[in-house]
C-alpha cells in the first residue's frame, strides 16, 4: 500500500482534467465549405471532337479537380470541342456544358454536373419525390488528402455508400432533414444535416485513441484493436523539434516503462531499460529490431529522421515471439516508406541548436584554492582551542606544492576548466524524397548532423543515406529492401577532463614563454597534451535488408516472406600523439568490424471466416550469425612522429594484438492470433531458441506464452454511450535472457609472461582465468500482465493501464567466491528476482475549439524489484545481494555527523571526518555495523506533456520526473571517492569543485569530511537523485496554405525549441539523472536552444 498516496495524487490530476474536458464538450464545430476558388483555376486545354467524359477526365487528372455526375442522367459520350489558354475553369465549363444543357456547382475542388432542368425539377419535387442528390469529398484533417472508403450512411436507415479513390461520394437522400453519418476506421464519426445544400464536403479527424493504428509486433503487424499484450507506440512526433542527435533521446520519458538515460557527450547513446532490471549481471540490453531484423549496432548509427515509428513490446506475452533474447524488452524500429500521393514529397529540414551545460560547476579559483589548503591543514593554520583564529605563524606558501609557489607569488589564477570548454552546437540538415504508386513505393533520404559538445574537441558528425524500396513484380510477388549507410565521426581528443578538474589555478598549462608545460605540477601530465596530435574515430555502418513476399496463389491469405538482413559495422580508431608514452610519442591504429546476417522465413496465414472468425497464424524459421574481429597495432618511441599512425613502423617498440568472436543463433517461432467478432481475442506464441553461447548441456530453450483480450465496448449489451472503446487484456508468458558468449567455458589467457636473463627472449605464459560451468543456462523471466485500454467521450480521454508481475528464475550472476579457489567469481544461475509495476498512460483533449486545441499526455510508471531467493543459504553479502531487498540495495555504514573539535575519535578516525554508527554497540566499527541504507531504484517516473495549438502555432511543453520515494533512487556522491588524489600531498596539490560542502572548523555541519587523511572506513555518501525537469519546450509555426501555395510548397514550418531548460533536485553536482555528482571526470548534461525550419514540397 506504499503507493496509495501517489495513486490519490494521480487520480486528482485525472479528475481535474476530466472537469476541464467536460466543460468544453460539444464545442466541436463543423467547418464551412471553402470558397469556390477552384472555378478560378487557370486552365489550358485543346480538344476537338472529344467525348465529354474524356475531357472531364483530363481536367481531373491535370488540375486536382473532381467531377461528380450521374452517368445515367448525363451522356458523357457526347462529343465536344474546347480550346482555351490560361482561362478560368468557370469559362471553360460554361463553354462546354451550356450547349449540352448541363449546369454545374462547385464546392472545394468538387464540381457537380447536372442537367440544367433537374435542379429546378428536384427543387419542385421535394415533397413528392424523395430524392436529393448530395455529393462531396471527404479529406483527412491532418494531411488534407482524400480518404477513399469512407462510409456515408443516412442516419436511421440502412442506406449507405462509400467514397471512391478520390474521396468523392454521391448519395440520394429522402429530404433536407436527412442526416449523413460519415464513418471511417481510425477517424471520429462526423454527422451533417443535408439542409438546402447538395454538396457536403467533410474533413475527418483522426481518432485520438487511434485503435486502428497498425503496430509492429515482431515478424508482422497487428491493428492496435487486435492486440492482447502490452505494446506501445512511442509518440515521436511531439519530440521531433527537440535538439537531439540520437533517436532514443526522443523517447526519454515519453513511454511509461521505457527508461532512457541521460547523455553527457556528443553523439553518445543513452542507456535504455524496459520495466526495471530483471537480471543481476546478465545482459540488460533491450533487444532492438530494425525493420524486422535484429540490430546489434549502436543507435547513434541510425538517423532519427528516417524512423517512422518505434513500438515497444513490454509484457511477457508480446515479447515471447523473441524468446531467449527478449527478457529485457523489445524495441521495434520501423523506417519510413513512401506514401501515396499525386506527386513525390520532398522534405527538407534544417536546425541549429546551442549546447551549454544545464548545470554550471566550476573548480575552486585561486582564493578558494588557497583557503582549501588552510582548511586541510586547519590544525596548523588556525589556533586552538576552537581553530577559528588564523595562526599568524602559519605560512600557507610553505605548504603549497613546490610547483605552485611561483603561481602563488605572481597572482596566477588560471581557469583550466574554462580553457577546456566552449559553447557547442548542433547543426542538422535532412533531405528526403518519397512517393508511392500502386506498384512501387520508395523513400530516399540523406542527412548530415554535426554536434560539437561543451568540452573542446568533443565532436560528432553523422552522414547518412537511406533507400527504402518496395515493388510489386507480379500480383503474387513483391520484393523490397531497406538499406542505409551511416558514417559517424567522433574524431578529436578532448582534454583529460579528470585532470582538468584536478589542476590547481596556481599551475598553468603554458610557461611564460608560451611553451607547453608537460607536467605542470610534477605529477599529473598536462591534460591538454591529449589534444595535440591526431585522433581519428570513425564508426561506419552499412545495412541492407532484402525481402520478398510471395502471396501463395490459390490460398487466400497465405503468404511467405523471406528476409535477408545484413549489417556491417566497421570502426577505425587511429591516434598519434607526440606527448604520449612519457613524451616519446605513441601511435596506434585499431580496426575492428562486425558482420551479422539474419535469414528469416516467415509463413503467414491471415483470413477471416464468415466475417466472424479471424485467424492470423505466423510461423518463423530463422538463423542469425554475428562475427567480430579486431586488429590493433601500436608503437611508442618516435623520433619523428610527423607521419603519425600512417607510419607506425618508425617506432622503437611495436606491439600488435588481434581479437575475434562469433555468435550463432537458430530459432523457430509460431504465433496464432484468433479473434471472434472483434470481441474475444486470443494470442498464443511459442519460440524455440538455440544460441551458441549457451552451455554444452543447454543449447536450446523453449519460451511459450498466451494472452487474451475482451473488447467490452463491442458487445451488443454494452450501452454506455460515452465509452468509445474499452478493452481488457491479460497475458502470461516466459522470455529468456541470453548468457554472455563464452561464459560457460573455462578460459585460459595467454600472453607475454617473462624474460629469463638480460636480453633474453619473451616467453609466453598461460593462466586459467575462469571456471567452466557446463550447466550455465539462460535466465527465464515469467510474468503476468493485465491491462485495460479505454477511450471515452469521442476520444477526449483515452489511455492504457497495465499492471505486471514477473519472476526471473535462474538469475545469471557472476557470484563472488573465495579467492582461495584461485578465482574471484563464477558465472552461474543463482536465484529468483521479482518485478512488479504499474504503468499508466493517459491522453486527454482538454480543449478543442476551432482555432485552439489543448492536449495532454501523462505517463506514469512504477516498478519495484526484490530478490526472492538466492542459491544456497542466505544473502550473498560480497555480491551485495540480499533476500527481500531490491537489487540496488545499499549496504553500508550509516554516518551520523562529524567528529568535532574537542571530541576524541575512536582509533582509525579523525576530527573532521564522518562518525559512523556503531549499530551493534560493541564500541568498534567493524563490517558488522553495515546496514541497508536504501536502494538505487526509483519509486516511480512521471511525465506530463502538453500541446497547445492556436491557429498555426503549436506549443509543446514536456516535464519529466523521476522520484525516489523513501530511501530510493539513491546515488553515490562523494567528492573524495577517488581516494588517491584526495589524500596527503595530493589533496594539497589538487583541486575540487567550488561549492563542495566540506568540513572545517568554520563549517562543522558540513556534508563531506575534510580531506587529506583517510579514515579506517570511508563509506562516502548517498544522495537522493529525485528530480523534476523541464525537458522539452518547442514552439512551431506552420505558415498558412495560402502563403505556401504561393511559394509552391506543401508545408512550411519554423520552430524554436529548448531542451533541459530547468531541473529541480536536491542532488549536488552535475546532474542526478546522469548520476554525475562532485566526482572528477564528469561532463555536464547539456541545455540546448534550437531554431529550425521544415519545408515540404
Amino acid at each position: 500500500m506504499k503507493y496509495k498516496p501517489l495513486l490519490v495524487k494521480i487520480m486528482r490530476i485525472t479528475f481535474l482534467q476530466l472537469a476541464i474536458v467536460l466543460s468544453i464538450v460539444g464545442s466541436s464545430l463543423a467547418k464551412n465549405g471553402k470558397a469556390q476558388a477552384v472555378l478560378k483555376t487557370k486552365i489550358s486545354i485543346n480538344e476537338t471532337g472529344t467525348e465529354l467524359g474524356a475531357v472531364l477526365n483530363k481536367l481531373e487528372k491535370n488540375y486536382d479537380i473532381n467531377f461528380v455526375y450521374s452517368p445515367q442522367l448525363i451522356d458523357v459520350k457526347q462529343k465536344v470541342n474546347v480550346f482555351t489558354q490560361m482561362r478560368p475553369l468557370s469559362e471553360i465549363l460554361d463553354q462546354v456544358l451550356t450547349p449540352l444543357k448541363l449546369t454545374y456547382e462547385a464546392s472545394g475542388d468538387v464540381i457537380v454536373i447536372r442537367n440544367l432542368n433537374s435542379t429546378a425539377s428536384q427543387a419542385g419535387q421535394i415533397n413528392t419525390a424523395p430524392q436529393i442528390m448530395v455529393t462531396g469529398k471527404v479529406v483527412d484533417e491532418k494531411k488534407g488528402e482524400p480518404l477513399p472508403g469512407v462510409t456515408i450512411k443516412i442516419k436511421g436507415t440502412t442506406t449507405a455508400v462509400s467514397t471512391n479513390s478520390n474521396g468523392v461520394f454521391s448519395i440520394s437522400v429522402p429530404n433536407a432533414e436527412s442526416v449523413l453519418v460519415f464513418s471511417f476506421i481510425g477517424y471520429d464519426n462526423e454527422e451533417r444535416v443535408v439542409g438546402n445544400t447538395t454538396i457536403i464536403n467533410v474533413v475527418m479527424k483522426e481518432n485520438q485513441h487511434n485503435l486502428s493504428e497498425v503496430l509492429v509486433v515482431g515478424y508482422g503487424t497487428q491493428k492496435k484493436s487486435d492486440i492482447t499484450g502490452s505494446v506501445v507506440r512511442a509518440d515521436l512526433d511531439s519530440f521531433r523539434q527537440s535538439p537531439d542527435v540520437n533517436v532514443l533521446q526522443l523517447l526519454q520519458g515519453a513511454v511509461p516503462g521505457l527508461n532512457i538515460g541521460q547523455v553527457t557527450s556528443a553523439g553518445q547513446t543513452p542507456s535504455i531499460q524496459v520495466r526495471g532490471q530483471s537480471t543481476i549481471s546478465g545482459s540488460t540490453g533491450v533487444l532492438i529490431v530494425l525493420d524486422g531484423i535484429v540490430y546489434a549496432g549502436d543507435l547513434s548509427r541510425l538517423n532519427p529522421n528516417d524512423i517512422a515509428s518505434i513500438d515497444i513490446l513490454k509484457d511477457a506475452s508480446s515479447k515471447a515471439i523473441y524468446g531467449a533474447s527478449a527478457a529485457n524488452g523489445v524495441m521495434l524500429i520501423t523506417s519510413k516508406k513512401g506514401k501515396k500521393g499525386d506527386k513525390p514529397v520532398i522534405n527538407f529540414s534544417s536546425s541549429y541548436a546551442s549546447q551549454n551545460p544545464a548545470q554550471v560547476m566550476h573548480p575552486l579559483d585561486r582564493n578558494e584554492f588557497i583557503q582549501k589548503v588552510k582548511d586541510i591543514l586547519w590544525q596548523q593554520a588556525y589556533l586552538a582551542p576552537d581553530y577559528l583564529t588564523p595562526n599568524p605563524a602559519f605560512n600557507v606558501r610553505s605548504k603549497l606544492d613546490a610547483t605552485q609557489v611561483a603561481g602563488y607569488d605572481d597572482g596566477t589564477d588560471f581557469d583550466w576548466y574554462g580553457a577546456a570548454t566552449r559553447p557547442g552546437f548542433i547543426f542538422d540538415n535532412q533531405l528526403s524524397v518519397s512517393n508511392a504508386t500502386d506498384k512501387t513505393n520508395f523513400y530516399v533520404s540523406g542527412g548530415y548532423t554535426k554536434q560539437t559538445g561543451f568540452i573542446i574537441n568533443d565532436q560528432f558528425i553523422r552522414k547518412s543515406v537511406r533507400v527504402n524500396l518496395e515493388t510489386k513484380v507480379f500480383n503474387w510477388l513483391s520484393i523490397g529492401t531497406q538499406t542505409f549507410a551511416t558514417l559517424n565521426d567522433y574524431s578529436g581528443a578532448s582534454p583529460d577532463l579528470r585532470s582538468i578538474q584536478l589542476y590547481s589555478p596556481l599551475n598553468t598549462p603554458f610557461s611564460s614563454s608560451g611553451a607547453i608545460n608537460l607536467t605542470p605540477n610534477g605529477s599529473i601530465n598536462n591534460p591538454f597534451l591529449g589534444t595535440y596530435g591526431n585522433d581519428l574515430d570513425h564508426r561506419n555502418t552499412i545495412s541492407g535488408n532484402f525481402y520478398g513476399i510471395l502471396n501463395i496463389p490459390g490460398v487466400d491469405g497465405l503468404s511467405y516472406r523471406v528476409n535477408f538482413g545484413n549489417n556491417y559495422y566497421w570502426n577505425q580508431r587511429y591516434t598519434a600523439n607526440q606527448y604520449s608514452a612519457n613524451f616519446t610519442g605513441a601511435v596506434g591504429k585499431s580496426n575492428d568490424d562486425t558482420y551479422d546476417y539474419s535469414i528469416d522465413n516467415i509463413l503467414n496465414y491471415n483470413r477471416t471466416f464468415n466475417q466472424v472468425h479471424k485467424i492470423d497464424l505466423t510461423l518463423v524459421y530463422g538463423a542469425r550469425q554475428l562475427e567480430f574481429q579486431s586488429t590493433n597495432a601500436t608503437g611508442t618511441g618516435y623520433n619523428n612522429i610527423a607521419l603519425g599512425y600512417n607510419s607506425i613502423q618508425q617506432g622503437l617498440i611495436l606491439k600488435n594484438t588481434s581479437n575475434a568472436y562469433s555468435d550463432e543463433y537458430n530459432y523457430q517461432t509460431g504465433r496464432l492470433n484468433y479473434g471472434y467478432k472483434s470481441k474475444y481475442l486470443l494470442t498464443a506464441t511459442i519460440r524455440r531458441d538455440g544460441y551458441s553461447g549457451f552451455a554444452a548441456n543447454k543449447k536450446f530453450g523453449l519460451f511459450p506464452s498466451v494472452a487474451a483480450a475482451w473488447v467490452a465496448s463491442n458487445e451488443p449489451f454494452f450501452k454506455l454511450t460515452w465509452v468509445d472503446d474499452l478493452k481488457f487484456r491479460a497475458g502470461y508468458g516466459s522470455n529468456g535472457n541470453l548468457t554472455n558468449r563464452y561464459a560457460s567455458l573455462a578460459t585460459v589467457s595467454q600472453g607475454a609472461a617473462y624474460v629469463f636473463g638480460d636480453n633474453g627472449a619473451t616467453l609466453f605464459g598461460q593462466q586459467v582465468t575462469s571456471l567452466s560451468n557446463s550447466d550455465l543456462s539462460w535466465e527465464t523471466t515469467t510474468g503476468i500482465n493485465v491491462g485495460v485500454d479505454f477511450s471515452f467521450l469521442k476520444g477526449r480521454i483515452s489511455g492504457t493501464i497495465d499492471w505486471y508481475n514477473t519472476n526471473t528464475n535462474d538469475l545469471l550472476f557472476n557470484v563472488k567466491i573465495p579467492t582461495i579457489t584461485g578465482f574471484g567469481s563464477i558465472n552461474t544461475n543463482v536465484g529468483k528476482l521479482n518485478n512488479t509495476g504499474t504503468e499508466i498512460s493517459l491522453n486527454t483533449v482538454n480543449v478543442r475549439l476551432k482555432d485552439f486545441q489543448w492536449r495532454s499526455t501523462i505517463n506514469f510508471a512504477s516498478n519495484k524489484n526484490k530478490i526472492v531467493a538466492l542459491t544456497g543459504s542466505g544473502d550473498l553479502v560480497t555480491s551485495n545481494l540480499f533476500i527481500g531487498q531490491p537489487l540496488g540495495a545499499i549496504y553500508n555504514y550509516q554516518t551520523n555527523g562529524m567528529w568535532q573539535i574537542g571530541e576524541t575519535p575512536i582509533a582509525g578516525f579523525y576530527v573532521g571526518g564522518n562518525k559512523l554508527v556503531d549499530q551493534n554497540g560493541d564500541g568498534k566499527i567493524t563490517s558488522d555495523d553495515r546496514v541497508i541504507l536504501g536502494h538505487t531504484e526509483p519509486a516511480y517516473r512521471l511525465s506530463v506533456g502538453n500541446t497547445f495549438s492556436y491557429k498555426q502555432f503549436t506549443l509543446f511543453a514536456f516535464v519529466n520526473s523521476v522520484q525516489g520515494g523513501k530511501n530510493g533512487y539513491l546515488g553515490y556522491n562523494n567528492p573524495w571517492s577517488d581516494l588517491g588524489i584526495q589524500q596527503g600531498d595530493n589533496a594539497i596539490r589538487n583541486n575540487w569543485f567550488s561549492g563542495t560542502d566540506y568540513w572545517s572548523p568554520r563549517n562543522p555541519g558540513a556534508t563531506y569530511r575534510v580531506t587529506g587523511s583517510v579514515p579506517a572506513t570511508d563509506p562516502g555518501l548517498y544522495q537522493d537523485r529525485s528530480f523534476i525537469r523541464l525537458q522539452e519546450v518547442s514552439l512551431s509555426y506552420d505558415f498558412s496554405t495560402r502563403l505556401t501555395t504561393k511559394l509552391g510548397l506543401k508545408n512550411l514550418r519554423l520552430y524554436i525549441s529548448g531542451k533541459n531548460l530547468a531541473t529541480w533536485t536536491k542532488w549536488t553536482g552535475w546532474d542526478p539523472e546522469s548520476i554525475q555528482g562532485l566526482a572528477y571526470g564528469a561532463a555536464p548534461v547539456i541545455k540546448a536552444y534550437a531554431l529550425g525550419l521544415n519545408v515540404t514540397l
Partner: protein
Amino acid sequence: MRNIHKFLVCTLIFCTVSCKKSYLDEVPLDFASTVNSFKTAQDFNASIYNLYSAVRTEFYSSDEQSPFDYIYGLDLVYDGQPSGPQRFNDYAVSTNPSNSYLTSHWTRLYKIISESNTILSRLPASSVTGADLVFIQANARFFRGFAYRTLAYLYGGVPLVLQEVTSPKTNYTRATQAEVYAQAISDLAFASTSLPAINTVKDGQVSNLVAYHFLAEVYLAAKQYTNAITAATAVISNPNMALMNSRFGSQSTDPGDVYWDLFRPKNQNRSAGNREALWVIQFENDVPGGSSSATAIAGSYQLERQCAPLTRDVTLAGGKKPFLWPVSDYTGGRGIGWAISTKYFTNTIWQSDFNNDMRNSKYNFVRQFTYNDPNQPAFFGQTISTENPPAGVTVPSRVFYAYQSKCTTPGRHPSALYLNVTTGLLSSAAGGTYADQYMCRLAETYLIRAEAYLGANDPGNAAADINIVRARANASSVLPANVDINYILDERMRELGIEEKRRLTLARLGLVYDRTVNVAHNPVAANVKPTSNLWPIPQSEIESNKDAVLTQNPGY
C-alpha cells in the same frame, strides 16, 4: 481441401529448411580453454612462466603500493606522507579487514597456489613424461610451497588446497599454521631434490638451491633447527656459490665497492659473473614480459620512488630550493620520500662500524647530497649531509634522509627517461628501479643458518656465519656472546635492508610489534599491537565463504 494441401506442402518445405547441428557449437576464437591447454610440456612450461610472472607481480610490480606492504610500518622505514590506508602509518586503518589493500596479497598468493595445483592435477593425464614431468612437478611444487610459506607468515594458518578447483567451493576452513608449514616443507623438500642444479638453469630460473634456501627458512619457522642447518648448508657448501669479494660487472671501474656492484644494472645474474645470487627476479626494459618500461612507471618495481627522498622540496632557511629534481644521480632519481628510513636503520645499527662497514659507505648508504641545479650557480656542486644538515632542513624528513642506493641506478636510468642528458633531468615517468632484483642471495642463507644455529643453542657457529657476511663488508667480527635474535635482525638490516621482505621475517619470528615499537621506535606507525603480527583474514573472503567459517585472527 486443395487449399489445405497447399498449405501443408508449404509448411513442410518450410520446416525442412534447417541448419546443421554443429551450427551452435561454441568455438572460442581468441583465447584457449582448459580442455586444450594442458597437453604438452610446452603447455605446462607456459603455466610455469606465468608463475614467475605472478611472483614478480606480488612482490615487486603490481602497483606503487602493495609490494611495499612488505616493508612499511616496521623497523626499517616509515611513511613520509601519512594520510591514507596504505603504508601502515596507522594499523587501525591499514589492517582493517574490510579494506581491500591487504586482500590483494591473499588473492595473488592463492592464485599462485591455484595455478600450481592446476599443473599438478592435469599432469597425469597429459603426454608429459620422464625428465619433463619431474621438472614441471618440481617447479609447481616449489611455487606452491613458496606461496604457502608466505601465507603462513602473513596470516597464520590458512585453508590448504592441494587439488585443482573446477567448481565453486564456499566452505573452506583454516588449517593450523603448523599444518601449513608442514605443507610448505613437503613441497619445498620435493623441489630441493628435483629442481635442476644452479649451474644448469637459465638466469632467473629457480634451482634446487633456491628450494633449499626457502626450505631452511620454513624449517626455522617450524623451529626445526637441525633440518634448517642441513638445508642451508646444502646451499652454502655448494661449489657454485660464493659471496662476491671483488669488484665486478657493468660499473666495476666506477667509484664504488663490491657491495655497490651487487646492485648495479645487469649485475645480478650468474651470467654477469655473480656467484652470490640464488634467485634473481628478472626485469627487462620495454620488452613484452619484461615488466619495466621507460614510457610509464606502472609495471616497474617502484622502489626508487618509495625509498629515495623528495629532494625537490629541500628548502634552505632563505627559501631557496637548491635541488633540481628528478635527476639520475645520488640525490635518488625520482624519489618521493614515502619510505623514510628510521633512525634505527640509518644510525643505530651502524654505530660499531660506522666508517668501516662497506654497506654504510657513501656509495651504499647515501648521506651526502650534492646540489645539482645548474641554474643556481651559488649552490651548484656544494655537498650537504644528513649528519650535518643545513639550517632549515630537518633530518629525517620526507625531503632529506639517508637512504640505500640499491633502490636507484644513478646515471643509469633507461635513456628514454632523460629529459636532459646533460643535467640528468628525468621525466615524470621515472621512479622505477631499473635493475634485476634478488629474491634471495647467499648472504641471506648465511644469516638463516646463523639463526638456525642460534635456535640450536650453538652461538659459536651462529657468530661464525654472521662474520662471514660481515667480513665481506669489512665490518668487525661479532662475538658469539653478543649474538641474539635482535643482533641477527640488525645484521639482516645492514646486509639486506630494503632488499628484504622485512615483514615476512618479523612475522615469521612473531616480532612485528616488538621490533617496530620497542626496538626501532617507528615514529609514525600508530595502533601497532602484539596481535598486529598477523594480518587479518580479508573480510570479503570470510563473507564469500558462506558455507563454513573462516575464523578471523585475534585482534580484528
